[in-house]
């Protein structure tokens, strides 16, 4: 019925189409102008921010996109490009760009301790060594401005003496020339006093008060909020030799390579600080992924389990879904609609909730499953049973999808084919095997491939159930149910130090693997299309 109906509409275009075409020409034009204008306006709005942050690549990319859009849509030519451009742009922005960024990150040692560049790291190490001099004086701080010069107006918190501090040093101020309230100078002859907000603004990075220091005999007086403290810094960096020297002890620290990073280390092997800095390390992360014996041995095991997990997840959900769909597709079945609605329930529940509820079911002593069955399996404590639990839960989570897909595909198979087969004497099962199933596969096979690719990276199913565990005390990074993506996640964001550069390298390898597998599968499903 439906088929014939749609064919009719194709054959006879609606008679009023031509009339509409003429009257609606202005509307698309307006829409087009508004849309292009909005995009151009957005780009223009972003430009000052990008200019101020010197993000040249972004700036060029944004205006290139705007240019391409205007070029393609403002003219009447380039009809195919009008259809291809949006898709191509989204592909570049949301797929190609992240992959390139991930790859770029995978050639660095980015992670904990290497988030800053070398210059910042050195500044932090030296700044972090500042200490109060013995019996350090504390001051109430105001900042006075005379012309373009700034002066610290300091009130000693203990004695109440008032000083003017500049880069030249500390000079006492006559008590008569200043007004002191609550331990800070509120008025001073010859100075305009800055408000707290002004001090805050001028103290921002590279501002005139950033790093403002008043030298004293024992060290320097530096601002600490709206107080000032007398400090000294024992460390000094020498750019020529690339070393940091502790002027108190005379120890010299030079950068020494450890793993993928460098630390300032003394001759006796003592590390000055745990702070290192980000560097490009080329393909070291990839070399490590394939040569580090612990990682490569983990990698093979995890890869095999990832494959098994994805294959089993697809196979179990597909066969259960197909079984139920075939059963419920039979006309003799009563209450089809009710059964179908009930079977969709697992699909209707947010995956997070069902996974968390299921993880409670598997508790050895207090969980529903052992309670109902009388078993005492330690589900998540044993690698084998943890795998069984994961496949089982994923079956529950995933079969409704397959059920839906199969129901749809079954209903699309014309009934006369089956009828013809049974007239030729085919039994129900032969009918299913020779007619229904091959026809079903034609439409379902691509979905199986995508389902495989999804499960290959099904982070939620693993992480919300077992978190990749169980682990052994000897190997805390690779658990019994870890798939590649959960393993990567632990490397990057796990409890121990984050290795984001290395995790990116694994991600890139994973991307290549998934791509190759999907390509192979799609090639295989092409054979199915011969059935048609």
């Amino acid at each position, binding site marked *: 019925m439906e088929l014939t109906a749609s064919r009719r509409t194709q054959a006879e275009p609606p008679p009023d189409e031509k009339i509409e075409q003429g009257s609606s020409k202005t509307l698309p034009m307006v829409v087009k102008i508004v849309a292009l204008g909005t995009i151009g306006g957005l780009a223009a709005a972003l430009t000052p921010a990008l200019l101020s942050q010197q993000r040249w690549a972004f700036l060029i990319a944004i205006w290139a996109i705007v240019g391409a859009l205007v070029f393609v849509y403002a003219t009447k030519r380039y009809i195919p490009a009008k259809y291809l451009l949006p898709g191509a742009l989204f592909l570049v922005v949301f797929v190609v760009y992240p992959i390139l960024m991930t790859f770029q990150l995978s050639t660095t040692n980015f992670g904990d301790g290497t988030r800053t560049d070398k210059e910042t790291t050195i500044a932090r190490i030296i700044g*972090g060594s500042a200490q109060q001099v013995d019996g350090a004086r504390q001051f109430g701080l105001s900042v006075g401005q005379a012309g373009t010069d700034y002066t610290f107006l300091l009130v000693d918190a203990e004695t109440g003496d008032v000083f003017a501090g500049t880069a030249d040093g500390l000079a006492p101020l006559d008590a008569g020339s200043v007004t002191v309230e609550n331990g800070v100078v509120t008025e001073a002859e010859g100075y305009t006093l800055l408000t707290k907000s002004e001090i805050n603004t001028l103290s921002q990075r590279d501002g005139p008060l950033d790093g403002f220091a008043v030298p004293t005999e024992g060290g320097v007086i530096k601002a600490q909020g709206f107080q000032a403290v007398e400090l000294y810094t024992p460390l000094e960096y020498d750019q020529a030799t690339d070393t940091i020297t502790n002027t108190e002890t005379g120890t010299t620290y030079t950068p020494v390579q450890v793993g993928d990073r460098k630390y300032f280390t003394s001759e006796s092997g003592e590390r000055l600080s745990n702070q290192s800095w980000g560097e490009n390390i080329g393909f070291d992360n990839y070399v490590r992924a394939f040569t580090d014996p612990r990682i490569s041995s983990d990698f093979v095991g995890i890869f095999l389990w990832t494959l098994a997990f994805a294959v089993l997840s697809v196979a179990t959900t597909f066969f259960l879904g197909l079984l139920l769909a075939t059963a419920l597709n039979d006309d003799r079945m009563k209450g089809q609609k009710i059964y179908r609605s009930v079977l969709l329930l697992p699909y209707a529940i947010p995956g997070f909730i069902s996974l968390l509820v299921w993880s409670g079911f598997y508790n050895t002593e207090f969980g529903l499953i052992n309670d109902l069955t009388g078993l005492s399996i330690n589900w998540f404590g044993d690698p084998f049973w943890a795998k069984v639990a994961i496949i089982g839960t994923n079956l529950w989570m995933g079969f409704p999808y397959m059920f839906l897909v199969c129901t749809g595909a079954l209903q699309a198979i014309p009934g006369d084919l089956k009828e013809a087969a049974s007239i030729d004497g085919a039994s129900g099962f032969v009918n299913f095997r020779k007619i229904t199933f091959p026809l079903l596969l034609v439409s379902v096979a691509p979905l199986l491939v995508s389902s495989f690719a999804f499960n290959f990276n099904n982070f939620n199913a693993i992480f919300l159930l077992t978190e990749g565990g169980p682990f052994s005390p000897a190997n805390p990074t690779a658990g019994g149910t870890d798939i590649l993506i959960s393993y990567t996640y632990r490397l990057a964001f796990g409890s121990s130090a984050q290795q984001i550069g290395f995790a990116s390298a694994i991600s890139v390898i994973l991307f290549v693997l998934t791509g190759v597998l999907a390509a192979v599968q799609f090639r295989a499903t092409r054979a199915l299309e011969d059935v048609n």
Partner: protein
Amino acid sequence: MRRISRTLAITASVAIFAAACSSGDSGGDATDGDTGGGDATTEAPPVRGDEELVIWTDAVKLDAIQAVAAKFATDNDITVGVQAVTDTRTAFLTANAAGNGPDVVVGAHDWIGQLVQNGAIDPLQLSPSDIAGYAATAVQATTYEGQLYGLPYGVEAIALYCNTDYAPDTYASLDDVIAAGQAAVDAGSVEVQLSQPVGNDGDPYHMEPIYTSAGGYLFGQNADGTYNADDLGVGKPGSIEAAKKIGSLGESGSNVLRRSVSGDNSIALFTEGNAACLISGPWALADVRKADIPYSVQPIPGFAGMNPAVPFMGAQAFYVASNGQNKSFAQEFVTKGVNNVEAMTTLYEQANLVPALLAVRDGITDEDTLKFAAAADGGAPMPAIPAMAEVWTPLGQAYSAIVGGSDPETSITQAGDTIAAAIAAS
């Protein structure tokens, strides 16, 4: 057991019902090829507010911090924004490195190692007389490599809750606690003697009192109280003794410690009256009070004839971001705005943490809080050194294996080797 599974079943069906009612159209997360994986991690990064002082914390502490911040805003006539940020530490590290992080961040003291390693926070310069006003362990906790990095406002440590129906006394030794619990189990009144989370991954945080009492230590301490990453105690003879003790309390021993008790159910077991005692922190207090059971709180005693039990002590503190836009206000807020009795009292009243400032403790009459204060003072600061990050997982796995019946000596030695190798590689 029946009761718990029934509760679980009810919870599950309510959840299923609620989910089915509320989100019938939100399918597509199980096997749908189009949705893509990793929904759990694609949360939008937090965006810094544009106030003159921006503070990041988590949702639990939001109200308390907001109260103090509001006062500071009025006093200095500026705008202050307090934002609750999920996964505050990681979000802060990332945002601070990118230059759009907050000016002040609030969090646990054991973050300090990682924050300093990434150059994300600045040391504070407080006068010695100011520092003297704080609990010694709190100052020790927030001091790292000789510098004070955080201003502590609250301290916490785990303690022993007992259901006084079954364990009415104040106990001098953990053996007596376990005996009282065992008597209640034998009488059929409860299922668990001492509810302490272990789970399949182990729980070194809650195991620390038992581990230290039985002779173990994690890192040796330098003369100034800081931890020495080169002196790892896991795998040393003391830790082997402790592992044996844990094994004897495990599933093949007296079954006091079990993997089926985890962070998910340890508190519920106690509040539902199924455990005689509970080892947990002040965060369980609200649930315990709500439950209709008679209870007592006391610092965890050690085993008879062994060392005292030393739990991890944690301090909550304010930090000044190294890359903040408003450093002057940030430093002023942390070193003056919070560093006074009035602000600390507000924080105590709103956040209900044991105050780190001793002057605030004087006015407290609540018995439970005082017990938790005693527990915190008797604890040792959780090591903040980056090497500690390598300890949690292997040690937890070892504990879980030992509780499950594996050989204590092999498991703990293996964990020690793994940890030592990981520290050496970093």
